[in-house]
Every structure is written in structure tokens, then in C-alpha cells.
């Protein structure tokens, strides 16, 4: 399996990359880590005529934070994120999720931005972005803008980005106080795409009552699914078995997964239910400390 022909460009900085992207119109494609793009090029499911390699854009390889926001550059390798103490301390959900992406050999190369813009419905990073409603910073030659994750993912492998735009960095809110999070997934084999994945982050008040909660599931719909009802169902209360059961039932009732070779819709629904209970419970226990 060999890719079709393409022209190759290696811009030195962001303005050059964006101008190349602008001039190549619909025929241009950015390559970062290439761990999703190159397989589909080798299979000729994608045949971009012009490949713009941003691996040399060191300005887009960073991890920083201020008091409220964690900022990660789009070219940061997944392995760098996985081993970052800063991220672990301030947004442990990311650390936990990244460990599930592919394998050591693909995380060494794969980037944060690449995985997010690829927008596979069962991928880990889009799910985390949705769970925490991160912000995506996007640039074209003439404009920079930011979009919330809730508005970014449109459908299978499709985002709000235009062909002349590129993701430059992602921002995640840093939660303070008694915060706990959990990421779990079920896959056929370790490192495979998840059949279903679930992510939860919550905050407790001084009396162990949930004051805020975000819950999202991957692999059940065309885009990561935010369970907006979670806060209504659980906020203001301590977590009981009955409450856990209720939120799991609500999730099971609201997902409409599809059957495929790997799992039936009924099985995926069951996984969504079970994983919901597990992540909410684990996040709660972690927040209690």
C-alpha cells in the first residue's frame, strides 16, 4: 500500500504554513504526527495533492498554564503530554486519557492537535475536550478565532474548521478545590479505538456534595456526547448508589449507538451505562481524597 503522489512543503513558521494552506485551497492538507493521516493515505482513502508538514513549527510545541487555563500547543506529542507533571497536576483527566491512545510507538509521534482535528468519534482527546469544554484556537492567513469544543465537533471526522484553517493550540479550564476526574474505556484490544469511552470530572463542596459535574461519552454517536443532564441529576447531593443508577439509566436511555463489526448497539448501550457508573463513582472517590 503506497500513497498517491503529492507535493511536499515544509514551512518554517506559522505564517508560512497558513499562506501555503490558503494557496493550496481544497487540495492542501496539514501533516503533524501523521498517525491518522498516513494510514488513510497509504490506503488511498485520502489523496491530498499538497502536504504541508508542520513538524518543524517548534512554536506550536508547548505546555503552559496560568491560574485558570492549561494551554497546549497543537504540535505537542502525545507522549510529552502523557509524561507532563504540569498536566497531571492541573488536568489529570488529560493524562489518564492520553495513556489510552494507540501505543507507545504512535504516541511518540502523534500530536494533540492531530488527534483532535481528526475527530474520530471514539478517540480519547476529542472526548476530553468535550468533557471539559475546552477551547480550540484556530488560525487562517487572515483571521484567528476560538471555538468551544461543544461547537467544534460536527459529525464523523468533521469539525467546524475550514480548509484554509489550522488548529494552533487548545485551552482547558483548570478546576480548583476538591476536584476528581476519571477516564475509562473498553476496547477489544489494548490500544485499539474504544468501543465506548467515558470521561467525568466533578467538584465537591465541604460536605461531599457534588457542586459541579461534567460527563461525556465517546463511541456512542458521531461526535463525543455530552450528558448535559448529569449536573441536574447529581448536583447538590452526595453520591448514592441510587443516584449512580439513575444517571447510568439516563445515559442508557439517551445514547443511540450503531451496530458494527465490533459491537452491537445493545452492547454499546450496556457499556455506556456501566462506564458511566464507573467514571462518576471513581471521580467522586478521587475528589473525596
Amino acid at each position, binding site marked *: *500500500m*503506497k*500513497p*498517491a*503522489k*503529492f*507535493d*511536499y512543503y*515544509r514551512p518554517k513558521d506559522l505564517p508560512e504554513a497558513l499562506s501555503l494552506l490558503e494557496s493550496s485551497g481544497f487540495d492542501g492538507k496539514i501533516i503533524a504526527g*501523521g*498517525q491518522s493521516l*498516513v*494510514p488513510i493515505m*497509504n*490506503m488511498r482513502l485520502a489523496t491530498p495533492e499538497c*502536504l504541508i*508538514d508542520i*513538524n518543524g513549527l517548534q512554536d506550536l510545541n508547548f505546555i503552559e498554564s496560568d491560574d485558570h487555563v492549561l494551554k497546549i500547543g497543537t504540535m505537542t506529542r502525545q*507522549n510529552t503530554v502523557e509524561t507532563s507533571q504540569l498536566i497531571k497536576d492541573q488536568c489529570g483527566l488529560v493524562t489518564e486519557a492520553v495513556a489510552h491512545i*494507540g*501505543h*507507545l*510507538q*504512535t504516541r*511518540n*509521534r502523534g500530536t494533540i492537535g492531530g488527534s483532535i482535528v481528526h475527530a474520530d468519534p471514539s478517540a480519547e482527546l476529542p472526548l476530553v475536550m468535550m468533557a471539559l469544554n475546552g477551547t480550540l484556537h484556530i488560525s487562517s492567513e487572515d483571521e484567528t478565532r476560538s471555538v468551544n469544543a461543544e461547537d467544534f465537533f460536527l459529525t464523523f471526522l468533521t469539525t467546524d474548521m475550514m480548509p484554509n484553517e489550522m488548529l494552533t493550540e487548545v485551552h482547558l479550564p483548570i478546576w480548583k478545590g476538591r476536584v476528581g476526574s476519571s477516564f475509562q474505556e473498553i476496547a477489544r*484490544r*489494548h*490500544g485499539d479505538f474504544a468501543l465506548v469511552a467515558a470521561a467525568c470530572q466533578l467538584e465537591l463542596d465541604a460536605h461531599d456534595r457534588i457542586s459541579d459535574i461534567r460527563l461525556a461519552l465517546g463511541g456512542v454517536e458521531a461526535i463525543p456526547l455530552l450528558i448535559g443532564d448529569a449536573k441536574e441529576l447529581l448536583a447538590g447531593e452526595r453520591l448514592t448508589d441510587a443516584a449512580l443508577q439513575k444517571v447510568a439509566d439516563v445515559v442508557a436511555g439517551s445514547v443511540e449507538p450503531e451496530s458494527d463489526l465490533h459491537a452491537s448497539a445493545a452492547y454499546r448501550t450496556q457499556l455506556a451505562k456501566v462506564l458511566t457508573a464507573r467514571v462518576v463513582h471513581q471521580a467522586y472517590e478521587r475528589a473525596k481524597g
Partner: protein
Amino acid sequence: MSLTEINVTINGKAYAEWVEPRMLLSDFIRETCGLTGTHVGCEHGVCGACTISMDGAAVRSCLIFAVQADNREIKTVEGLACNGEMTALQKNFVECHGLQCGFCTAGILMSITDFLEKNPQPSTKEIKETLSGHLCRCTGYDGIVKAVQKTVQDNQKEVLQRS
């Protein structure tokens, strides 16, 4: 057909070659440089046979274009042995029956070499997680896991003896 010149160091030797942008690094290593120790199984990032080390990190060479390796330092399985002496990991693969047909072996050796550098005392679970990036159709992985575990023990003994 437009060609691009690249300069790559493989196992300490400099190569300057003209390549088509679409040439995979795995093909460059095997066909242009004649280093056939790196194997190619699936060519879409699933089997791990093509794993090499680029700037010290284990990566799949079928998911990188040769042009992207310009000015990079690459190590393949041929570069592991030093003056004809196999590494401890390689010797333990022989001793623990870590290979049968050997098709997957080069890739696994490259991954585990990187893995043990970053994590010198891994648990069995961590070893298995790393091996999940490699398909072996012969061994059932048991011998491979034992070879890695033995290497970890040998390294530990060596550290103890030195201290």
C-alpha cells in the same frame, strides 16, 4: 516526478539521497539503503513490524515519509549490536525463545529498547501494554515477555553490583 534531497543518519552512517515525497521511510530504509532488518507488515500502522528509532524515540517507519526524516538520526535493528556483540535484550530473546519466525522481532526490539530506557523497571502489565503495539503470530508472546523481564532483572543486578 519531483525529487527532494534528504540527509539522514542511519546507524551512524550518513546517507544523502534523492527521494519522491511519497516514499515511506520504511521503503527508504529497506530499498534505498538496503537495510532489510526492518520489516514491513501492514503499512498502515497496526502491526509494529516496521518500528525504528528516530531521534531516540520508537516510531513506526511506515507512518513517516522519508522526506520527514531529513536531518534526523535513525537507528534500526542492525544498529543495536555493538562491535558484533548483541545487546542484553537481544541475547535474552535468543535465550527465552522470544522469537520463532522472527518477522516481528526487529520492531519489538526497537520498541522495547526505547521503553526500557524510559522505564528501566517496568511491571509485567507495563511490558504487556508496550507489546500490544506489536503483532506476533508465532510465539504467543510468552517468550517475549520473559525475555524483557529477564533483561530488566539483569540490568537491576548490574546496577546492584556496581553500587
